[in-house]
């Protein structure tokens, strides 16, 4: 793989999709208000949970806010990159334009996963970062080099898992053509990531760590922030993330064998 070529192509992607998205300026403003309101709403919900209880699943309110912050950042990343691109895959397959992608002298997964960008997601990512900084202050977390690198590792693993989940579902479009509702199911499951895993009953906890690893996505990075995480959990997350990435890649290559263009 020629890294420089891919970087150059990515720059072009950024340029073209930003130019086309900025055509809808009021849309971006509306999306920003939506992101703010949705954060306010989930903090409101959290405050209802903590109304008469000091702890939920062993987490204090200030600690649970970290999960909200990480969720908001990841949701922003989803809205910036995963959502616009992977809904595009569905279109490509339905209309048969995936042919043109496959013909290009560039990796098809790279092309369809990074082609588009939705700038309003950036604002959500920033919102999440502000909340995270605020949480670091109120929880009096000491910033040290090892802490920073660990949190960076876990968050990037979460991004990988999230990406793989989205990519898996979009890949199944090759067989099922319509997958909007499967994406809705994923979205509603991801919603669980707003709350600490320990607040659920044992059976759901198992379900959300083995079948759909939503537990890994937000809870482990938040534990790293609080200095509660054991090393083995971080190792497990790294392993899960790499397994997910590799299988999603393999699955895409496997699925392409079944792709037979539209109307053929």
């Amino acid at each position: 793989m020629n890294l420089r070529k891919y970087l150059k192509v990515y720059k072009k992607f950024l340029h073209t999709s930003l130019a086309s998205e900025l055509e809808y300026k009021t849309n971006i403003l509306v999306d920003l208000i939506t992101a703010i309101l949705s954060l306010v709403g989930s903090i409101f919900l959290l405050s209802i949970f903590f109304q008469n209880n000091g702890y939920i699943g062993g987490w204090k309110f200030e600690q649970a806010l970290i999960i909200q912050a990480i969720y908001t950042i990841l949701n922003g990343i989803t809205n910036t990159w995963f959502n616009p691109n992977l809904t595009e895959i569905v279109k490509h397959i339905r209309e048969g334009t995936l042919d043109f992608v496959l013909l290009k002298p560039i990796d098809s997964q790279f092309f369809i996963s990074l082609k588009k960008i939705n700038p309003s997601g950036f604002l959500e990512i920033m919102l999440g970062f502000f909340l995270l900084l605020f949480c670091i202050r109120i929880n009096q977390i000491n910033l040290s080099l090892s802490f920073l690198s660990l949190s960076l590792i876990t968050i990037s693993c979460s991004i990988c898992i999230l990406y793989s989940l989205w990519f898996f579902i979009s890949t199944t479009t090759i067989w099922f053509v319509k997958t909007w509702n499967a994406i809705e199911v994923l979205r509603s499951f991801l919603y669980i990531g707003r709350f600490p895993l320990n607040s659920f009953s044992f059976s759901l906890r198992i379900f959300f760590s083995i079948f759909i690893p939503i537990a890994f996505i937000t809870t482990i990075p938040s534990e790293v922030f609080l200095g509660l995480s054991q090393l083995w959990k971080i190792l497990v997350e790294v392993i899960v993330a790499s397994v997910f990435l590799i299988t999603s890649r393999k699955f895409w290559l496997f699925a392409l064998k079944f792709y037979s263009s539209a109307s053929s």
Partner: protein
Amino acid sequence: MLEYRVEIALWAISGIIPFFMLNIWTNNNLNESINLSDVMLSRYFLCAFFVRQFSVVWVVFSFEEDSLMGKVSPYLIQPLNPFFRYFAQHLAEQITRFPFALIIAFFFFIFNPESLWIPNLGILFLSIVSTFLSFLIQFLIQSIVACLCFWTEKASSVERLLFIPTLFLSGLLAPVVSFPAYVKSWIYLTPFPYLIDFPANLLSGNETNISGGLSMQILWIFLLFPLFKKIWSEGTKKYTAMGS
């Protein structure tokens, strides 16, 4: 509609957030503070799931797609308001979703056998009526938003914005009784608690003001319907077909 069985089954599954919320509530004994027993709370969330299944509206997305594709022009020539078309689609899909919702309820009762109950016929009838009214309110609100397509072309982002208060204030994630007093003081004046909280309370047998709730629902419909007619007639005047 029956052609898309898997689709609809998946959609029914995507509505199970209330059950996750129920799990948080009962697992942390949060319901003690609002004087609601585990059984009543689980019935509430099951009913919230049902009400949501039969009041989901997506007319904005259909209308936006149709208007971007230029399909609205032929509809406008027909002597029927195109929103009747969407209305019929929604009703048909609700009927197809019914068996899937029943299956999910069946599994729910297997895991929570103590929360099984049979509402009496009168209550059942009233709650079906109020669920339908809730559907009408949401349909009208979304149709008004959909008419914004005549001006902006991308009305679905406005809908996503409106969905946030609907999600948090309607009682889907937490019953309105549990809200803090500073919210409860004004929330009953908005349409939100009548979308899910009121019908779900009615059906699950939790305490609620039946006549007050129904009359508020009807009041909102009477407020929204003229607004829809107004924005529709303004919008169609403004409308120009694509490429003209």
